[in-house]
């Protein structure tokens, strides 16, 4: 089956290290995306024409451009334009945050828009101040809707990280590829085993997150 090449030498450790790099990139991008996304999403609900216009264009760019193209633009284009050489990891974090922020902002905007007007009005009618209405009524509802959605986004971001191997980061798929290449002669079937292990690693990284999100969704449905 070729699975034995995984356990040869440092191969398994290299795979794990690759996953670690991928996780580091995802984690950093996820944190940046969530923070910036919440800020942008809130700005978007203000319905100021300037902000609406710019964020529309931004969301549209993210939607149209494949992440890979963005990666190449940032990694190669940025260096050419400015003379500064970005590391592959930094480029990946920039691109994933650029993408994640857009997705997160859209989720936040959607969640805020989905709170019915009557929730604000009945709070006001009960004598709540604007601040109290947000603290006790609106924000708790937004968070409940947002958490499962953002966990879903995080899972997707982790999966998409494998894209960065296109620009040469030593990351899971790339390590996998290297192991396969190195063992082409001794274990011609290594591809299957190596990819099976990679699949398992990704599954282990994403499954608990995805499961947790389903659990929250169920618990908080209303």
């Amino acid at each position: 089956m070729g699975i034995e090449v995984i356990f040869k030498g440092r191969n398994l450790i290299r795979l794990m290290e690759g996953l670690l790099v991928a996780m580091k990139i995802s984690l950093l991008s996820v944190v940046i995306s969530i923070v910036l996304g919440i800020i942008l999403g809130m700005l978007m609900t203000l319905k100021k024409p300037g902000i609406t216009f710019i964020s529309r264009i931004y969301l549209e760019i993210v939607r149209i451009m494949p992440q890979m193209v963005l990666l190449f633009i940032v990694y190669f284009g940025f260096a050419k334009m400015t003379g500064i050489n970005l590391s592959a990891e930094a480029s990946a974090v920039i691109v994933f945050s650029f993408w994640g922020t857009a997705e997160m902002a859209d989720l936040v905007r959607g969640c805020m828009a989905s709170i019915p007007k009557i929730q604000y009005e009945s709070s006001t009618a009960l004598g709540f101040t604007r601040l109290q209405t947000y603290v006790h009524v609106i924000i708790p509802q937004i968070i409940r809707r947002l958490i499962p959605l953002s966990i879903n986004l995080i899972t997707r971001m982790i999966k998409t990280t494998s894209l960065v191997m296109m620009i040469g980061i030593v990351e899971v798929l790339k390590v996998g590829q290297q192991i396969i290449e190195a063992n082409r002669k001794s274990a011609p079937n290594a591809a299957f085993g190596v990819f099976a292990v990679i699949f398992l690693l990704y599954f282990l990284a994403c499954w608990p997150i995805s499961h947790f999100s389903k659990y929250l969704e169920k618990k908080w449905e209303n």
Partner: protein
Amino acid sequence: MDEILKIEHLNKKFDDLTVLEDISLEVKKGEVVVVVGPSGCGKSTFLRCINGLETIQDGKILLDGETVNPPLGNIKNYREKIGMVFQSYDLFPHKTIIENLMLAPLKVQKRNKVEVRKEAEELLEKVGLSSKKDNYPRQLSGGQKQRVAIVRALIMHPEVLLFDEVTAALDPEMVREVLDVIMELARQNRTMLIVTHEMAFAKAVADRVIFMDGGVIVEDTDPKSFFENPATERAKKFLSTFEYNE
């Protein structure tokens, strides 16, 4: 002088559209005023102006002799004194029934938690919903939710209650249980303004009927005269649209 609520020459516009025109009305303590009129005549807007959910363009609304709209300073304190129940279910979906009831007394009125919980439980008992206190709104029927919404207004000890078609979104078999609660409040001499399309209920609960059409008060009379012998053609026409339903 036992007028609790006084509306003087109220005018309300949405941009260029005049929705309420020169409305004047005095409501006595303990009076049950039913407001009826065709769809779009401004009934909801009228109630919303009374508790300051809408700004007004002209005129004044006074509660206990003090102006509440246009708002002078602390309108929040007046809102506590005016309870409102809306047509659509508006309970807080992330809170249990008892939490829905306790939130405003605790946060707005800063009352004692033990005392508020006790009152909430008593009120739930009165509307037959004790067993639901730890459920979430989504686990209740429409009629049950509206009864909770009424209790949520009552626990603030309002001086005036506003009801805006609280049964309009309900399945027919649930209308009765909600109207019964309002009837009971009328028996307790609560001051209420009730907008409804349930004419039999209006007739039974009202001390006084206001008929609105096109943003003005067309008739302001007692229920017997209004339902049995309306003075204006517009009221006759309006009432005739209900004849098949009763």
